[in-house]
């Protein structure tokens, strides 16, 4: 209906006005993309470019209300202190553990979930994904309940049952790290399974059929076909895990709220938050932030280069 009416309308137009209209349309086609991407450009300038330039400038300043002075590299020199080392160390250990747990295990579970032999696949997939729906805060509430300090708390009674002594989970470095890694693993397992499942579904079935004809067993098939074919997804998961691990803040905040005993839960982002929003040492906080940015970009560039080189060799 609409088409008809617009057709009849256009045939009624005189040649002149049609030309004018066409020119307007060509102009519109030329400018529309710029109008459409304008929100991104504005947002980029206002909420990324300006703040990042400001951060770089701030990192060379001493900023206190009404008094801003350039102090050169002083803020960066201040980075050489035990608390910053602790923050970097905790963050690195946490990231490493999330990589060790959240890549191989979801991969294996995804392979099992992808097999037609496995019953109730959808039920298992949903069940494993559900923790991802909670906020870190709610997850933290639950974990603090389970890992309470009383000897009768769930985790401690389980330990006693197995013959170990009960723990003060939130008071020691090792158990504290365990709490953070466990919380992250619990929330992210299902998401990474989904990533690997998506990758598995992209592997052509013929590859497996051919391997079966050659007499390859399940283990050989996994290492010769599945693993290499999952490489793009694995690199993606690795990249976002490094990114997510190094910027971690909430997983520590829910346990200690930025004031952990002996800094056992101090992370780089937590340190930025403390220095910037609690001690108001804005220049120093900016310097920490830039170092964090550098770490993430460096590790991910190296990692992508490393695996990228391998990919070229293969093809």
């Amino acid at each position, binding site marked *: 209906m609409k088409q008809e009416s617009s057709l009849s309308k256009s045939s009624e137009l005189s040649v002149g006005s049609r030309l004018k209209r066409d020119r307007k349309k060509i102009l519109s086609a030329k400018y529309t993309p710029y109008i459409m*991407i304008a*929100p991104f450009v504005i947002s980029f300038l206002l909420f990324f470019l300006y*703040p990042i330039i400001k951060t770089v400038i701030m990192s060379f300043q001493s900023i206190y209300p009404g008094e801003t002075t350039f102090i050169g590299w002083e803020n960066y020199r201040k980075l050489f202190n035990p608390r910053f080392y602790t923050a970097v160390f905790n963050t690195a250990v946490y990231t490493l553990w999330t990589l060790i747990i959240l890549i191989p295990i979801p991969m294996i579970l995804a392979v099992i979930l992808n097999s037609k032999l496995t019953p109730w696949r959808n039920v298992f997939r949903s*069940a494993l994904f559900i*923790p991802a729906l909670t906020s870190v805060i709610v997850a933290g509430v*639950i974990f603090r*309940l389970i890992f309470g300090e009383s000897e009768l708390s769930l985790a401690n009674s389980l330990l006693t049952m197995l013959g170990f002594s009960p723990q003060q989970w939130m008071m020691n470095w090792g158990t504290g790290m365990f709490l953070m890694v466990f919380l992250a693993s619990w929330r992210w397992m299902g998401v990474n399974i989904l990533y690997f499942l998506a990758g598995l579904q992209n592997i052509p079935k013929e590859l497996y059929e051919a391997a079966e004809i050659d007499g390859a067993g399940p283990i050989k098939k996994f290492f010769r076909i599945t693993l290499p074919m999952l490489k793009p997804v694995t690199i993606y998961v690795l990249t976002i895990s490094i990114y997510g691990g190094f910027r971690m803040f909430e997983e520590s905040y*829910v346990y200690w709220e930025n004031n952990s005993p002996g800094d056992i839960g101090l992370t780089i982002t937590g340190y930025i938050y403390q220095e910037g929003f609690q001690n108001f040492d804005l220049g120093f906080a900016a310097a920490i932030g830039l170092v*964090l940015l550098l770490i993430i970009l460096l590790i991910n560039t190296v990692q992508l280069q490393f695996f990228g080189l391998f990919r070229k060799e293969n093809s």
Partner: protein
Amino acid sequence: MMKRRWMLKVLSVILLTCFAMVALFPFAALLLASFKPANELMRFGLNLQLDPEEMNLQNYLYLFTKEGKIYWTWYKNSLLITLLFTLITLFLSSMVGYALAIYNFKGKNAILFLVLFLMMIPLEILMLPLFEEMIAFRLVDTYGGVIIPFAVSPFAVFFFRQYALGLPKELIDAARIDGCSEFGIYLRIMGPLMLPAFGAMGILQGLNSWNNFLWPLIVLRTDEMFTLPIGLAGLLTPYGNNYDVLISGSVLAVLPILVLFFLLQRYFISGLTIGAIKE
């Protein structure tokens, strides 16, 4: 051979059941805890002693007392911010992504590079200048302050661009001949074709916004403006005596998401996996 297959099947079910139990058990623990007296819970943790006489609805009833009233304000803030953020980010991000996929224009590749680059930047490092900007724009302690800086999500832009690449371009030419304006084509013809993408991204962005923590923690300053995660986190002190709200409030904060998940499972999953499939 048959026997080995059967063994493998049993083994995988056992393994999956173990992991599924670890995944689901904490929810059961939270639900159980919500019926127990709250003041001892957070300090000493949850134990497994099931004393039916001790169990009651006190924690939930507390939400309806004068002290618990603030919880519903947080709930309302969370709902409104999530709704507004999701609508705005879907509209803006899809438009940018669509333009990057459909049109050829100068600077297109530079913009695409910036989108991908921004996906790698931890925005935490920009907190301080962003907060100063919020002060300058008078957006501190407002919904706008939470929403506007992140309204154009690079991740969503990229997602919509990938999706729009697969749309039939012939429709655009046909619409142009019919005299449809470029924005009209986007809004009336191509937009509706992207509906599955809107569904998947909408759920993902909504979930992120509902659970968002660090930025709202910085921008929102007064009790009346807090979202659920910020409000609940404030009750997480070792000395607080508001654990009743914390526990029953946590149950009610996950509940709507669980319901939505069971209704819209397909969209949840496609929204999360798209980034990994497309190279």
